[in-house]
């Protein structure tokens, strides 16, 4: 692995390896919590906090954790931080806790976090891992806010609760519902494909890039057709 500059590590997660739009991981929370800007932002920040903390701790422990039991160890570390975030959100932002609901504890199975632990934090220094966590977290938050803006503007005519379009046209509530989520995600991803200059990078499916067990299954046998769990 070539040595990357600190800035490159940070910027990597924003566009080039945006977890949601390029690596296509962490799709469930993306679709579920981008119903409005505030929800998307809250989810993005919560996930980022867990990602940065778990990256730091896993990077610290990377020489101590035995290779064969590393996945359970990572999950324990991540679950601990998720519980902390859950309690903090419940205490200081009860409204957000209510609207995120089930998806807050589900950060623990968000493949972005386990994927970064496996792909980056267990191979790199503490500082680099923290930067990678911030970059990936920002990429995730940015995507959620963009999708949340589109869905909130079209769905209820507001942005962050401020009425914008609602005076001109009635909201199309379908955009805040499930089909709108899939649709906006598809449009945003197609747009990213369109502006990406490197056309060869376009994925024709779900590769092993984001898969947590990519190391074990070099031949792709354990992950049928490159599924990302």
């Amino acid at each position, binding site marked *: 692995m070539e040595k990357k500059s600190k800035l490159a590590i940070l910027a990597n997660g924003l566009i080039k390896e945006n977890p949601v739009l390029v690596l*296509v*991981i962490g*799709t*469930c*929370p993306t*679709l*579920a919590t981008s119903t409005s800007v505030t929800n998307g932002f809250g989810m993005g920040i919560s996930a980022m906090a867990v990602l940065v903390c778990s990256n730091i701790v896993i990077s610290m422990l990377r020489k101590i954790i035995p290779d064969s039991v590393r*996945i*359970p160890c990572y*999950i*324990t570390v991540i*679950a*601990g931080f*998720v*519980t902390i975030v*859950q*309690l903090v959100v419940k205490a200081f932002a009860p409204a957000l806790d209510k609207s995120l*609901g*089930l998806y807050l*504890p*589900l950060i*623990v*199975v*968000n*493949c972005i976090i*386990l994927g970064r632990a496996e792909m980056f934090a267990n191979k790199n220094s503490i500082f680099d891992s923290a930067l990678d966590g911030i970059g990936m977290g920002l990429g995730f938050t940015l995507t959620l806010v963009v999708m949340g803006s589109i869905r909130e503007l079209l769905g209820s005519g507001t942005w962050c609760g401020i009425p914008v379009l609602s005076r001109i046209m009635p909201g199309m509530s*379908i955009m805040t*519902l*499930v*089909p*709108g*989520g*899939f*649709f906006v*995600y*598809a*449009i945003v*991803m*197609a*747009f990213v*494909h*369109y502006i990406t200059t490197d056309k060869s990078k*376009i*994925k*024709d*499916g*779900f590769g092993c890039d984001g898969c*947590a*067990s990519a190391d074990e299954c070099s031949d792709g*046998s*354990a*992950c*049928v*057709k*490159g*599924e*990302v*769990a």
Partner: protein
Amino acid sequence: MIKYVIIIISMVLVNNYPLAQFLGICPFLGVSKDMDSATGMGIAVTFVMVLATAVTWPIQQLLNSQGIGYLQTVVFILVIAALVQLIEMFMKKNMVGLYKSLGIYLPLITTNCAVLGVCISNIDSGYNYPQSLFNAFGAGLGFLFAMIIMAGVRSKLVDQSRIPKSFQGVPIILITAAIMSLSFMGFGGMFS
């Protein structure tokens, strides 16, 4: 008895996990390329969901009685991970045929949010033990159902040459999912 039937039907059609609740989207999009793996994954998920609920529901009661209910997330994910590992080992030794068809999907299920999701939502919605089991079974069936439909649609999508370039690959699958979930919205309001 009729109550359990309603739980199952509502989980399969009205509250279908991938199409109405955004749970288990990753395998729904990733493993639905051909019918065989879609069915295998669906059955494996159903199996793990029911077993995980059977184990985690009593554990939650134990945690509550000790006043440490907030440890739910940590305990559940570890229990599910251990359970999946156990099932895999048991299958490898005693049920070789089944292991060959389902075993490869098992390690992926640990990080499938639908499994943890069904365990937590059973607790949150205050179901009792048999209701929780039926709820998990229904959720699994709904997942299997969505997987099979998706795999069927995707088998017709193999030739992508007529799709605009930017939409080839993942975006067109998401559009397909959007149309599918739109039609599933028609089931909404079947039960009050």
